[in-house]
């Protein structure tokens, strides 16, 4: 990333470092209670999920409606492995990652050749089947009875003669979440700038041109889907070890929709946009939960608002609040009147 001196950073970079510093010392502010940390961890968790989902609609332009399926698979894998075998969280993370990727490949390989609409519906069906499976296979998942008593995360150095430190309360999870978000962002940036990322954007822009450059469409799409699923699973594993209770109805379609909302709002394909989208939506959700009863309005207004946001965003800002050039050019393809946006590849559309 070049020389990391303070002067060399762009304005955007300085803001980000500042935010990170703020986040690190947040728990020490006086008004920050465990509840605030709880919400903050929720925000960070959704950032990871949103970044994972971002790969598919953002980098690849496909609509994945079944993301919550991978989230659920990751959560239950982590929960069950912990519940039955007491595996350490640090072992589960790579396992979850690979499991998620595996399911991504299994689902993606036969379906990514389909057109966008069919792909969306198939992913939706997949996530519904996952929920049904989690609910009905009681012998495996305890179904609706839920899976309580999952161990908390702990750093166990007893093998080396050191202490065992368990994560009690919200604070350790908060820092763990920050670390996980940072790792995810780093990985996303590396991918975006790599050959993989550029191939994805090429596919998004024009499949025919991409193929004629020698890109194997299906392989790249499957890889994208697999990585997306892997991050969903990782988010799920964290979730399981944080709330220590799992139940199949935590993984309904609504979650997929919510995460999609975050990406749409923030700007598809834009890593920071997606994170801000997550932050705004989760905070908004909690704020509305508090305010709406005070205003005498039912909680449903919250969901209504999100639906409306989606519709309005697609109508007026389809590339999100913080769009990136490649996506913006493509999403506004039909609106010939807009001349401000430069097409990504330098060719007139």
């Amino acid at each position, binding site marked *: 990333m070049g020389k990391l001196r303070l002067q060399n950073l762009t304005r955007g970079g300085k803001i980000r470092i500042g935010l990170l510093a703020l986040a690190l010392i947040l728990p020490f502010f006086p*008004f920050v209670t465990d*509840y605030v940390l709880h919400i903050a961890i929720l925000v960070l968790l959704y950032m990871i999920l949103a970044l994972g989902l971002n790969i598919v609609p953002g980098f690849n332009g496909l609509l994945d409606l079944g993301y919550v399926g991978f989230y659920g698979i990751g959560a239950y894998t982590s929960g069950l492995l912990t519940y039955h075998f007491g595996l350490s969280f640090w072992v589960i993370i790579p396992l979850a990652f690979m499991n998620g990727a595996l399911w991504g490949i299994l689902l993606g390989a036969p379906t990514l050749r389909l057109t966008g609409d069919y792909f969306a519906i198939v992913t939706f069906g997949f996530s519904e089947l996952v929920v*049904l499976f989690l609910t009905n296979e009681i012998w495996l998942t305890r179904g609706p009875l839920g899976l309580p008593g999952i161990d908390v995360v702990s750093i166990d150095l007893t093998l080396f003669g050191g202490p065992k430190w368990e994560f009690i309360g919200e604070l350790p999870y908060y820092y763990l979440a920050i670390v996980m978000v940072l790792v995810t962002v780093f990985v996303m940036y590396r991918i975006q700038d790599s050959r993989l990322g550029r191939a994805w954007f090429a596919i998004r822009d024009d499949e025919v041109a991409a193929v004629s450059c020698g890109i194997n469409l299906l392989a790249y799409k499957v890889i994208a889907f697999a990585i997306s699923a892997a991050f969903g699973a990782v988010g799920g594993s964290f979730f399981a070890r944080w709330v*220590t209770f799992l*139940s199949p*109805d935590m993984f309904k379609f609504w979650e997929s929709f919510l995460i999609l909302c975050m990406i749409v709002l923030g700007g598809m394909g834009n890593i920071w946009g997606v994170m801000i989208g997550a932050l*705004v939506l989760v*905070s908004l959700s909690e704020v509305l939960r508090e305010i709406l009863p005070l205003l005498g309005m039912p909680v449903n207004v919250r969901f209504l608002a999100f639906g409306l946001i989606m519709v309005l965003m697609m109508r007026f800002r389809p590339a999100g609040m*913080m769009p990136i050039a490649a996506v913006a050019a493509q999403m506004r393809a039909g609106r010939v009147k807009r001349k401000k946006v430069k097409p990504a590849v330098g060719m007139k559309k």
Partner: protein
Amino acid sequence: MRNKRTFLFAGLVLGLALIFGITTGAMAGDIRIGVAAPFTGNLASYGDNIKAGVNLKLKEINDAGGINGQKVELVWGDDLCQPKDAGTVGAKFAADKSIVAVIGHLCSSATLAAMPIYVRAGLPALSPTSTNPTIGDVGKGWFFRNCYTDDFQGKYLANYVVPKLLGKNKVAIFYENNDYAIGLKDSFMAGAKAGGVNVTGVEAYMTGTTDFTPQLTKLLRDNPETIFLCGYHPEGALIAGQGRKLGFTGPLFGADGIDNEDYIKIGGKAADNTYCTVPFLAASASPAGKEFAEQYKKTYGRDVDWMSANAYDCLGILAQVIAKTGPDREKIRDGLAAIDSEANGYTGVTGLTYFDKKGDCSKPAFVKVVKDGKFVAAK
């Protein structure tokens, strides 16, 4: 780009400030008790019952000057009967140090999700309606309930209601695939096996189903004498209607999940001849209970139900304990744990309440039946 970013940040800061402001805006001087239940969503009618019962007791307490001079304030937490929201509500209650106890949650799955948070924070929870037997284990001494558990209810249905009250022997079980119904079904089947009641068939359905005809057709093929509506009232009402349409004329029965006016409203004529067990029945209650039922009817214009009665007693129990121990979470927990035998039990509108080591209590069950579109006591 810059404008959008600043706009977003401004909105964020405002939003976060609001959250901080709201959570830390607690007023000193009041005794604050959290109440967690679904107040919106499709089980909102249950939440309404809890609200009604608790508010009635609240008025009584505050009109009498509060507890040791301090007024009681209720903090509502809408958990939508979902574990995830229950976790957030639980975190909020736990973090707000001015909340000294929680009445809730309503749904067993919500309670299961929130209890680890309460245990960690040391916040006692008293549930008027969570009947899942495993909560006591998760609660680790911080959980109490003044309703019976599904363990008891299922066995009561199998050993008393079916053979003795209904006089039937062949039962078809149709259960909802959720934590409440599965526990109920399991204990019923255990009781049936021990008591010699014949279970002719067992089918399951998902919450939210509206068409039960395939499963009902299958169950009716084995000629059961009665059908066990093992679930909540929205689906129960539909099952009753469709069962009747398919030609079933015998009695139906269920547990406390069926006890709701909506069952009759949606079931219509088909709801007649349905029995259900309830923890509280105005007709069979003590004089205090009957008085409560009348007052409830006067205030709210509808018949009292067991959830309201239990919630009313929950606040009553907490008030009595807090009067002795003061508004301190751990002391309240100890105070609740001290109600451990008939001698120091709490006498309320639902009868005598005292807790065992797991926080469970044993309460008698009553049976209601729907006759001509109304719930009446069954004899």
